[in-house]
């Protein structure tokens, strides 16, 4: 049976892992490589490294840390942030990342998704979508440049429409960041994730809102997502990963068992 994935997300700025609330006010959590190693040892199924300043800064970002992570980590990992071209993606994949995640640049140039698909294959093309519930229009809408408060803007796209388009263009996985829930630890946005799940035939990863163990159970059970991404509950030690996985197994969720070699 395919297991549901638990995915710690490490927001990276200037080579350090940071965490903000609702994408703002970042505080430093620690160094990337030891944190990544620690999560892999604790049973994380996958890691996402998100360079939060890259897309909004318009600068070339030092990504040499990708290679340092690839040397020590033996679980899959995805790098997001500042990937604007096929060449940018190629460099990250050559350094040892398994997937690259594209958000704002795909909105500016949707054709980029197709080029990434045709060059590196669907399996490594992840599309991140920052989605916000607009109370005025009563719709879920896509936002861009969410790494920088001054530049964050509504794209005018409806989330479900964009979800369908990125799949047609060759996305292999979608990470849905539910902005209303991000960092406030009140639970994943089940209603929105269910809506997107119905429009999504590739793996779907829930992001934003995890605060308690049962939030993970709820999102797997009620929104049928393939993975659940979280940051602060792991960084702050609120939910230890082994405890979370034991809890989910006890609730009947299919979760990867630790490898125990036979000694015959």
């Amino acid at each position: 049976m395919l297991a549901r994935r638990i995915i710690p997300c490490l927001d990276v700025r200037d080579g350090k892992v940071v965490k903000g609330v609702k994408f703002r006010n970042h505080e430093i959590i620690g160094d990337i490589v030891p944190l990544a190693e620690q999560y892999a040892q604790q049973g994380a199924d996958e890691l996402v490294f998100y360079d939060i300043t890259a897309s909004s800064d318009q600068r070339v970002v030092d990504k040499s840390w990708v290679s340092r992570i690839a040397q020590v980590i033996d679980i899959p990992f995805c790098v997001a942030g500042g990937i604007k071209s096929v060449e940018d993606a190629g460099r990250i994949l050559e350094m040892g990342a398994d997937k690259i995640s594209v958000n704002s640049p795909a909105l500016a140039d949707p054709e980029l998704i197709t080029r990434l698909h045709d060059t590196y294959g669907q399996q490594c093309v992840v599309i991140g979508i920052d989605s916000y519930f607009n109370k005025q229009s009563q719709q879920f809408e896509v936002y861009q440049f969410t790494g920088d408060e001054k530049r964050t803007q509504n794209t005018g796209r409806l989330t479900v429409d964009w979800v369908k388009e990125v799949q047609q263009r060759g996305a292999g996985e979608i990470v849905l960041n539910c902005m209303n829930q991000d960092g406030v630890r009140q639970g994943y946005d089940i209603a929105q994730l269910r809506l997107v799940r119905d429009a999504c035939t590739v793996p779907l990863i829930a992001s934003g809102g995890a605060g308690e163990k049962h939030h993970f159970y709820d999102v797997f059970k009620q929104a049928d997502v393939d993975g659940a991404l979280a940051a602060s509950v792991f960084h702050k030690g609120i939910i230890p990963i082994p405890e979370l996985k034991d809890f989910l197994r006890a609730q009947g969720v299919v979760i990867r068992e630790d490898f125990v070699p036979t000694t015959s």
Partner: protein
Amino acid sequence: MSVLSSSQHTVIINTGCANISSVKFALQRLTQNVTVSDDPKVICAADKLILPGVGSANSAMESIEKKQLASCIQSLAQPVLGVCLGMQLMVTDSQEKAHQSDLGNTPCLNLIPGQVKRMQVGDLRLPHMGWNTVEAVEQTSLFKGIPQGTYFYFVHSFAVEVYSHTLASSQYDMPFSAAIHRDNFYGVQFHPERSGDAGATLLENFLNL
């Protein structure tokens, strides 16, 4: 993890795909002498070979043809491990072809009989992505110390069905080959380099063949 003989030379065949690094790093965690090469002389002189691959069967085969490596790989007698797309390149042909191409199936290296087909998974998602359990068909040296039902990491939409060359199987709506074998050629559909300690054990078993 035991330290392997430092005199053994492992070569990763450079098929022209972008992400060979993760395979290289995984091997370097187990053995000292690892080279990435597309030089037939270096490839033929290796003790163990890895045939990696991501992307699509047609682009990988094009790259292999361009580098004139097909006959070199077909002539190898030492143990070769194909990983993911690398495994799929080992069989006779693949249904995976260039986007909007009218051509037939993509001919592969034909090291092991068999055909790669698009997975039929009903309402489940494709790509088949994540950790899934693997059942070895019989106790073999490649899966030594690896219990039935061990989780490995998969990312793929095409697969080889379960047949006479299946070494291990997995299930995703349909059963499929998680590992195949003929003579000196071994292939795994999952990514051992990204499968934690289970993957490291499998790679070590391969290096110890």
